[in-house]
């Protein structure tokens, strides 16, 4: 019994020659995550088709209305239809998350590549990144939004700002290890210019880890957006975001728990879909890590 329990390092290393196309169907996480996101994306893009009304419509006569045919999930303290709000919240959350992921990936890649290629800039950039990373993320976002004012645009800028340093560090470390590889040394010896090496050797090399990192930023950004709105440091209170719905329902949640749980569960499902996608992508694109979180 004791002997069987010894974890033997897996000898079955996946053959490197297996094409991406063959490995893809083997990772259900990517497909499950993508499918959930696709449905949420459709709901967010066309909430009207799913029976959502006007998220700004205040039906003062029907405040805190119970579940009914007209209001499938009831209404909030201002008489807004909770079902409508929840669907429109998906729009806000997905847009903020996606925008932050794309912006942080591009900016982070740029900073990381500059840091890895321009030797004299490297220590300066790294120290600044250290400084930004030393500030707890949500605290920094609060500071940025408090200064710049609460709007969705500023939330996106703030989250992008705090997510750039980890991306830049990742990209830099990948690029630095690429620099030592023989095929890059060969290119240098053959007289390739620095921009050429960055574009044709570094950029393709960082794509896979960058993509994985971007999905995790997407998930983190949605959580931070909800947190900022919840504490009143996000989009203006009238914006139908999940954080704002919860913030408005905070004082009444014991009377009507759905005011909290509907947006919270929506956020949970969305974040989990993105995390599944990211987890799956990581296992798919990086076979070395497979044994760690198989």
């Amino acid at each position: 019994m004791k002997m069987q329990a010894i974890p033997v390092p897996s000898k079955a290393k996946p053959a490197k020659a297996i094409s991406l196309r063959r490995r893809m169907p083997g990772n259900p996480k990517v497909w499950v995550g993508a499918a959930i996101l696709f449905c949420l994306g459709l709901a967010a893009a066309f909430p009207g088709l799913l029976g959502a009304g006007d998220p700004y419509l205040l039906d003062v006569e029907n405040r805190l209305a119970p579940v009914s045919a007209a209001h499938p999930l009831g209404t909030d303290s201002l008489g807004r239809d909770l079902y409508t709000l929840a669907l429109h919240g998906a729009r806000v959350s997905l847009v903020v998350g996606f925008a932050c992921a794309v912006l942080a990936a591009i900016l982070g890649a740029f900073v990381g590549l500059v840091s890895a290629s321009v030797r004299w800039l490297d220590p300066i950039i790294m120290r600044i990144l250290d400084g930004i990373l030393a500030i707890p993320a949500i605290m920094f976002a609060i500071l940025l939004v408090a200064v710049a004012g609460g709007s969705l645009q500023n939330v996106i800028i703030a989250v992008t700002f705090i997510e750039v340093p980890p991306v830049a560090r990742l990209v830099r470390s990948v690029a630095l290890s690429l620099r030592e590889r023989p095929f890059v040394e060969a290119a240098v010896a053959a007289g390739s210019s620095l921009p050429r090496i960055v574009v044709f050797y570094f950029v393709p090399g960082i794509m896979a880890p960058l993509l994985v990192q971007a999905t995790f930023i997407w998930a983190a950004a949605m959580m931070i957006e909800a947190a900022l709105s919840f504490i009143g440091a996000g989009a203006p209170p009238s914006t139908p975001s999940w954080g704002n719905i919860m913030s408005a329902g905070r004082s009444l949640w014991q009377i009507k728990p759905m005011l909290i749980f509907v947006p919270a569960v929506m956020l949970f499902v969305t974040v989990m879909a993105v995390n599944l996608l990211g987890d799956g992508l990581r296992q798919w694109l990086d076979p070395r890590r497979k044994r760690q979180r198989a």
Partner: protein
Amino acid sequence: MLGYVIRRALLTIPVVAIVAAIVFAMLYFTPGDPALVIAGDQATPAQIERIRVALHLDQPPYVRFFAWIGQFLQGDLGVSVFTGQPVTYMIAQRLEPTLSLVVLAVLISVGVGVPAGVIAAWRQGGTFDKVFVAASTFSFSVPVFISAYGLAYIFATTLGWLPVQGFSPIQDGLGDFVSRLIMPAIAISMIYATLIANVTRSSMLDVLGQDYIRTAITKGVPRSQVLFRHALKNAAIPVITVVGNGIGVLIGGTVIIETIFAIPGIGRLTVDAIMHRDYPVIQGVVLLSSIAYVLLNLIVDLTYVVFDPRVRY
């Protein structure tokens, strides 16, 4: 050893200086007059003038930066625009609940996360491990709103076992202290504990595959001793690192959790400061929490030497 401690401690000074510069410089990303923005739309000229003077906006930036740094080094973070009290005083008053919350959360997370990770690694591929891996993707995605309100709904509203909210200092009795703090601490720990458990598992997997573990098992060392003494001690460094780094997530989480559970701590202070656009308070909280975070990671780095005597710098 002492030389290493001093050198490592000196390394934190530039980081703290950069943090201070960033926190200070933030004020200049404001479009337009910072005093106007902070005062809000309904401010009277007198209020705006008071903010301008409180923030020393009537002086050039470099003068202000060095004045601000000089004051900070003397323990002065300025005066709240809203209450008129010194920021350091306001923060000190709110320190206890937040500190209690964070310490309890760390204890819970390490107490659950490390053993869970060790057992999952020991039985890699077994039932516990499979459940563990599936659950970790799941619990990574749980927003603090679900864990917090979910716990409150079950244990306070429905079962009535625990008070819904509030804080009771430890000197007023341990029972009240724990019963009010246990739900917020568990709620805030979800993602942090998952992080610790995952790192423990993967670090243990690396160590368990090594020859000396097999030797220990074949010579008949009891299983628990192999796991928790031979293996865990060598797998400890990544775990300690994530315990330190993850504190940042906890500090951020306190802002939300203190709002949900009405705990009068630093997080609640921050939220109130946002509402009143009390910029000196926000600045002070961000700066001090960053410094606490940096110092904590300094301590974490220093403990490496305890767990791995080979570490010498």
